[in-house]
C-alpha cells in the first residue's frame, strides 16, 4: 500500500494513498468541524458533497481554501486547519448558515442534539453580522415525520439516505440558489408521497429540519388518566441504545434499568415486545414451514421465497414499489402489532379491562412504527391495537422530564405474562436476527430434533446483502438477508425476474436493522456505535436461558389458553394481516 507523507498544522503525518485531509487530521487528533460530511464506513455510505464548506482548510500552493472532507492527501502537502484565514472563513460561513436559520433553538425538537447548535457553541458565535431574508417553508406534519425546512442547511444527507441507500426516492434537491431546498415532488407533504417512514433521513439530519412526530404528550396524558390501564411494550433494539441518551457507552445493555424506568413513569404493566417477537416466530415460522412443505411436495402455486414482514418501513416500501408481489411476504403482523392485538384481547380479558379503557404504548427504535400503529386494519371499531408508538429518543425525554436518574436505577424485570421472552426474540433487533430466530424454531419443528448449536453465525454481519444456507436435516434451506431498502430492492428485482434461489429472506429497512432505526439515539454518522449496539443484542441473547421462541412458556400458555395452534383461525384473525397496493397515481385520465 502506498503511503503519503504530509504536514498538518506543522505536524508530520503518514497516511494511505486516497485518504482525505479530514481523516489525516483526525489521525493527529485534529477534529475538523463539518456539517454535511457523513461516513458510515461499515455500510459503504460515504456522503461528501463538499457543500457546507465548514471543513475548509488552507493547502499551501492552492489559490483558495479546500474542503478537507473531499480533498485527498498528496505527497508533501502542507495543510493548515487553524490559520487566521481558515478560522475567519469558517466562522463567516457558519454565520451565513445561521443567518438563514430560525432562532428558536430553545424550543426546537433538536435542541441539545443539533450539530449546527453545537458548532455555534464550540465557535462561540455571539452575533450574526449578516442579517437578511430567511427561507420560509410550510411545515409538513406526516403521521411519523415532521419536516421544518426553514431549518434545512442543505447538507443533503437525507437525500443520500433516501435515494442512494434506501432507493425510496421521495426526496430531491429542488429549485436553485437561495431557494434551493430538499423536498418531495411538487413540495407535497410526505403523507402524499411514497415515503416509507423508515426515518433514515431523520436519523442523519444534523439540525431540526427532520424530526419525528412527538407522541410523548399523549403518553403523559394517558399515564395521568386514572381510568386508563396503560400497558407498555419495549422493542429489542431499545435496550441496546437507550443508555447513550444518559451518557453511557454505546453498546451498554440497560434492559433492567429500562423496565425500572418504565415502572417509575407510571405504566401499569411493563411488558416486552420480545414476547411478541417470539409469537411472531411461531406464526411466521409455521407459515414458512407450511409453504416450504407444500413447495417441496411439488405444489407449484406456493410462493417462495417467503419474506419477513415485521419491519413497517419495508412493508410500506413493497406496497408502493412492488404492488404486484403482495403475496410474497409473510402475512404475519409485526411484533408491535401482535403485542397490541394480544394485549387488547387475551390480556385485557385476563385482567377484565375493556379494550377501550386500555392504552397500549410501544417504545420503538423506529418512526415507521408510528405510521404502522395508525393503520386502519390494526383497529377494532376504531380503537387501535397500539395507541401510541414513541421512539427511543422520546422515551429518554420522558425519563428526563420525570426527574428519574436513569443511571442509578436498579435492574428490574418485566411483568408477566407478556414480558417473558427468549433470546430469539431479542435478536429481532439486529439484521439477520429475525431469520436466525425463525431458523431455530423451524428447524426443530421441521426435523423434530433438538438443535444443539443455536448460534447461526453465517446469518450475522453488517454486509448489505448476505446469503447462507442451513441444513434442515438433509434439506438445504437457502436464506437471504438484506438491510437497507436499496439492498432489499435488489433481492426483490431478482424474485420478480424469477432469478431468486432463496427459500426465505429477511429484510430490514434500516442499516444494520432496528439498532440503526430512525428512532434511535443519533449516531451522528459514527458506524462504530451501530457495531456496539449489535454486540449488545447478541450478548443479551447469549445470557438468556431460553433461546428458542417455541420454548417460551408463556407463548405455549397463550396458545393453550387462547389461540389454539399457530395459523389457527383465531391466530389468523388476530396475528395476520394483508397488504395493499399503494402505488400513488395523481393522474386523472379522461
Amino acid at each position, binding site marked *: 500500500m502506498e503511503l503519503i507523507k504530509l504536514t498538518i498544522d506543522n505536524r508530520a503525518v503518514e497516511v494511505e494513498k486516497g485518504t482525505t485531509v479530514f481523516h489525516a487530521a483526525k489521525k493527529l487528533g485534529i477534529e475538523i468541524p463539518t456539517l454535511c460530511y457523513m461516513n458510515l464506513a461499515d455500510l459503504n455510505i460515504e456522503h461528501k458533497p463538499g457543500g457546507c464548506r465548514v471543513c475548509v482548510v488552507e493547502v499551501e500552493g492552492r489559490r483558495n481554501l479546500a474542503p478537507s472532507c473531499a480533498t485527498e492527501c498528496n505527497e508533501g502537502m502542507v495543510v493548515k486547519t487553524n490559520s487566521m484565514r481558515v478560522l475567519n472563513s469558517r466562522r463567516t460561513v457558519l454565520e451565513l448558515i445561521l443567518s438563514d436559520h430560525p432562532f428558536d433553538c430553545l424550543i426546537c425538537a433538536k435542541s441539545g442534539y443539533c450539530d449546527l447548535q453545537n458548532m455555534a457553541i464550540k465557535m462561540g458565535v455571539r452575533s450574526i453580522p449578516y442579517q437578511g431574508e430567511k427561507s420560509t417553508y410550510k411545515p409538513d406534519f406526516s403521521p411519523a415525520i415532521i419536516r421544518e425546512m426553514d431549518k434545512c442547511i442543505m447538507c443533503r444527507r437525507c437525500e443520500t439516505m433516501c435515494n442512494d441507500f434506501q432507493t425510496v426516492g421521495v426526496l430531491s434537491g429542488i429549485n436553485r440558489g437561495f431557494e434551493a431546498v430538499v423536498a418531495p*415532488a411538487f413540495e407535497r407533504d410526505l403523507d402524499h408521497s411514497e415515503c416509507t417512514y423508515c426515518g433514515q433521513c431523520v436519523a442523519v439530519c444534523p439540525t431540526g429540519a427532520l424530526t419525528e412526530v412527538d407522541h410523548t404528550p399523549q403518553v403523559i396524558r394517558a399515564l395521568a388518566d386514572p381510568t386508563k390501564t396503560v400497558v407498555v411494550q419495549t422493542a429489542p433494539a431499545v435496550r441496546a441504545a437507550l443508555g447513550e441518551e444518559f451518557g453511557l457507552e454505546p453498546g451498554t445493555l440497560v434492559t433492567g434499568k429500562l423496565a425500572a424506568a418504565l415502572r417509575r413513569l407510571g405504566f401499569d404493566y411493563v411488558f416486552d415486545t420480545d414476547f411478541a417477537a417470539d409469537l411472531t416466530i411461531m406464526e411466521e415460522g409455521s407459515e414458512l414451514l407450511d409453504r416450504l412443505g407444500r413447495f417441496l411436495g411439488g405444489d407449484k402455486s406456493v410462493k417462495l421465497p417467503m419474506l419477513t414482514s415485521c419491519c413497517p418501513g419495508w412493508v410500506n416500501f413493497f406496497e408502493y414499489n412492488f404492488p404486484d408481489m403482495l403475496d410474497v411476504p409473510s402475512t404475519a403482523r409485526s411484533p408491535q402489532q401482535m403485542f397490541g392485538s394480544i394485549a387488547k384481547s387475551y390480556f385485557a380479558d385476563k385482567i377484565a379491562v375493556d379494550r377501550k379503557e386500555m392504552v397500549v404504548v410501544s417504545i420503538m427504535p423506529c418512526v415507521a412504527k408510528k405510521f404502522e400503529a395508525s393503520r386502519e386494519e390494526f383497529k377494532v371499531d376504531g380503537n387501535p391495537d397500539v395507541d401510541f408508538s414513541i421512539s427511543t429518543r422520546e422515551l429518554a425525554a420522558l425519563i428526563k422530564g420525570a426527574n428519574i436518574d436513569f443511571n442509578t436505577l436498579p435492574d428490574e424485570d418485566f411483568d408477566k405474562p407478556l414480558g417473558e421472552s427468549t433470546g430469539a426474540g431479542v435478536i429481532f433487533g439486529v439484521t439477520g436476527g429475525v431469520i436466525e430466530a425463525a431458523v431455530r424454531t423451524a428447524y426443530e419443528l421441521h426435523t423434530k430434533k433438538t438443535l444443539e448449536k443455536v448460534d447461526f453465525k453465517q446469518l450475522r454481519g453488517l454486509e448489505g446483502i448476505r446469503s447462507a444456507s442451513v441444513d434442515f436435516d438433509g434439506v438445504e434451506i437457502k436464506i437471504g438477508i438484506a438491510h437497507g431498502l436499496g439492498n432489499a430492492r435488489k433481492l426483490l428485482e431478482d424474485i420478480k425476474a424469477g432469478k431468486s434461489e432463496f427459500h426465505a429472506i429477511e429484510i430490514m429497512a434500516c442499516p444494520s436493522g432496528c439498532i440503526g432505526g430512525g428512532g434511535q439515539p443519533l449516531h451522528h454518522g459514527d458506524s462504530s456505535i451501530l457495531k456496539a449496539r449489535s454486540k449488545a443484542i447478541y450478548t443479551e441473547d447469549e445470557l438468556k436461558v431460553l433461546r428458542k421462541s417455541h420454548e417460551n412458556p408463556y407463548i405455549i400458555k397463550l396458545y393453550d389458553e387462547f389461540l389454539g395452534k399457530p395459523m389457527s383461525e383465531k391466530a389468523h384473525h388476530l396475528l395476520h394481516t394483508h397488504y395493499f397496493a399503494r402505488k400513488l397515481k395523481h393522474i386523472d385520465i*379522461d
Partner: protein
Amino acid sequence: MTSVKLKLKENDVKKIQEICKSFNNEPGELINVLHKTQEYFGYLPAEVQEEVAEGLGISVAKVYGVVTFYSFFTMLPKGRYPISVCTGTACYVRGAEKVLDEFKRILKVAVGETTPDGKYSITCLRCVGACGLAPVVMVGDKTYGRVTTDGVKDILKEYENE
C-alpha cells in the same frame, strides 16, 4: 414552483410514453425528454412529470428536482403571446429594466405570470445574443430591438385585436 393542473387525456399519456421510448426510456435522457414534452404541452405540469418519471423509471422527486433547477422548464402555461424581455448585461445598461417595468405596469402581471385572459405572459430572458439591438424584447418568435418604454405600448398594440 407554482403550477397549473392539467388533466391528461389518454393520448397525452401515450404521447409522453412515445417520447420516453424515442429516447430508449434511458434515465440519462431526462432533460431531452423534458424538452420534448414541454414542446408538446407548452409546460410541464405535475401530471406530465409523473408520467415522465414512470416512463424513465426514475422517481418523481428527481424529475421535479430537475424541472425546478433549469429556468427553461416551466410548470405554468405561457400566454398566447409570450413576452420575453432580455435582461442580459448589454440590455440592462441600455434600459431593459425600465422596459420590463412598463410591461408589468401595463399588463398588471409579475414576471413569470400570465394575464388572466391567457393572452400574455412575461418572462425574463438571459442574453439572446442580439446585443446590437439592446434592449431586446421577444414576443413569441418575433424580435423587437432598441425597445423604449414608449415602444412598449406600440408592441402591445400589434396584438391588440388578435
